[in-house]
């Protein structure tokens, strides 16, 4: 990791704030998903792709703990920040969220955790599964702003689950980035997993490659395996049940790989020691949610 990145990580780790956000837009996004735009006072830094916020869904809500949510878009508007989120109302938290209407207020902690190290050199290969598409489109935007195109791989079980496909296509087209589609059942794009597809086309892409991925852990596991097998660095956005989201509860451990255990305490990685996990476990909320795939023990990741 570059010295700059180290410093930035250190500064960012304790730069989050608790602010009151206003719902600006809340609408269907297709495939059972919803899109939420929140307007925040810009007292906290603008999030990087891969970072997340904690949504404090307060009483009288049936939900006690905040819900972590990846930032799917970020724009500055005057002294305000507009953050976008993509989610599916599947449980009590997201259903409570779905009831928010434009004009309603919600408290958020933002921005939390660490984003994708997009500064790393190489052809950015973005690998998205399902709703993982959103933070990666955000990453693609950031890359485009620094003049870099990406190879965008997007997969799902079937075409009905390619969340926001048209939006993705439009935006990637505009950036001059390429969209590679895969569905497990072949109903759209390549017939197979998104990793099967990457496997096919990887050699034709400008080398070296660097992977940034977001999706279900099972997919991220395949990404990690592929990266190791091909010597391609891979950065993956993990999830974990969280309580605090800020490093104090120690509730969100992910098992470190033996390599990361050996390196523990040496690299520092820019994260203030008190936010670091321990030799055995990294904390998803402060050291992640984006991890170098090689730093996790994928045998023990759920």
């Amino acid at each position, binding site marked *: 990791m570059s010295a700059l990145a180290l410093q930035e990580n250190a500064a960012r780790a*304790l*730069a*989050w*704030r*608790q602010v009151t956000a206003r719902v600006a837009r809340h609408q269907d996004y297709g495939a059972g998903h919803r899109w939420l735009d929140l307007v925040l006072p810009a007292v906290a830094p603008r999030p990087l792709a891969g970072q997340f916020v904690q949504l*404090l869904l*307060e009483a009288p809500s*049936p*939900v*006690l*703990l*905040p819900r972590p949510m990846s930032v799917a878009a970020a724009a500055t508007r005057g002294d305000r920040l507009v953050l976008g989120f993509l989610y599916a109302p599947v449980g009590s938290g997201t259903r409570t969220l779905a009831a928010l209407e434009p004009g309603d207020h919600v*408290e958020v*902690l933002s921005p939390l955790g660490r984003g994708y190290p997009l500064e790393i050199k190489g052809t950015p290969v973005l690998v998205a599964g399902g709703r993982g598409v959103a933070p990666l489109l955000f990453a693609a935007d950031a890359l485009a702003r620094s003049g870099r195109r990406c190879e965008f791989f997007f997969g799902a079980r079937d075409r009905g689950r390619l969340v926001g496909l048209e939006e993705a296509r439009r935006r990637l087209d505009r950036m001059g980035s390429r969209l590679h589609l895969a569905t497990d059942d072949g109903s759209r794009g390549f017939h197979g997993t998104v990793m099967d597809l990457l496997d096919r086309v990887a050699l034709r892409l400008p080398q070296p490659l660097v992977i940034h991925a977001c999706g279900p852990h099972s997919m991220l596991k395949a990404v990690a395996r592929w990266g190791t097998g091909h010597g391609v660095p891979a950065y993956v956005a993990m999830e*974990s*049940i*969280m*309580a*605090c*989201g*800020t*490093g*104090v*509860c*120690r*509730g*969100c*451990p*992910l*098992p470190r790989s033996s390599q990361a255990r050996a390196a523990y305490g040496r690299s520092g990685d820019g994260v*203030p*020691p*008190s*936010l670091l996990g*321990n*030799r*055995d*476990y990294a904390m998803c909320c402060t050291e992640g949610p984006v991890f170098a795939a090689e730093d996790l023990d994928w045998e*023990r990741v*759920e």
Partner: protein
Amino acid sequence: MTKRPGLAERSDPTGPRIGSVDLMVRIGPLTLLNPVLTASGTFGYGDEYAHVVDLGTLGGVITKTVTVKPRPGNPPTRIAETPAGMLNSIGLENVGLERFRREKLPKLRELGAAVVASLGGETPRELARLMEALGDEPGIGGFEINFSCPNVSKGGARYWAVPRRLERTLLMLRPLTRRALIAKLSPDVTSVADLAKACEQGGADAVTAVNTFVGMSVDLDHVRNRLNRSTGGLSGPAIKPLALARCWEAAAAVAIPVIGSGGIMSGRDALEFIGVGAAAVQVGTLSFVRPRGAGEVLDEMVAWLVERGVRRLDDWRGSLAPRPDEACAPRPSRGTLAERLRPRRR
């Protein structure tokens, strides 16, 4: 040792006007600015929140429990949400005595808040070792002995749920420090009063009632237990009525101060604990929900007292608790502040 003026002067001009409510709390040799502490394991070592919370306004910060050796904690999953509560099975993840002293202590000294170090051990010996190492360290106002962790296989709540063991252990620790010595009790016992009395006999300056309740959660969709171990500890609003009862019971049993803990999410909740006899309170899960929660609890509490013209928190303390001879009375005891504050007709 932290000494502060007893009259709270809040820096935040937008908060309620604290005016001149005397909020000072004495826990043995330790004087707290006010009765609101952050609970062990829910506020890290203080510095994680220093940029969002004005730590100097808190009554005190209790650190994550420290053990002699570093502990990696339990494997995932460590957290499960339940109706109005959460289960945790952290397993006392902590940096261990050496790193605590080397890395955390210097930072704790800079917090600007009274610091209570939480200590955990699998045996009385281990606790003594910790106390030998830390008992005189400057910057620590007191020690809370975690006799009540539900998430470790050795030296957990069940091991310590024996009055004689508590008493003997505290008698052993007492000479090792002149700082405040607090015993944190498990609620999962037949009589928290018996444990509290044993702690008093052992020389504790206070007891904390209570730690989390042993609970279990099943993920039926994935057909497995949710937590890494069979059980975890339940905290949050769900346990408030239970913790309140145990706090009352402990406070009625001993003369030393009782620190209430369990489901405190607002100033009103804190006032309830103090009303049934607590000298101070701890805010745990709330900090996950609102990092500034502890300060908000304090502000709301003070506003309530100011509104009713109560000038000393001590007058409110215990005034809602039935005296032992009237344990069946829902009314506040005669002559107490609560009786005076009670609205005449419903």
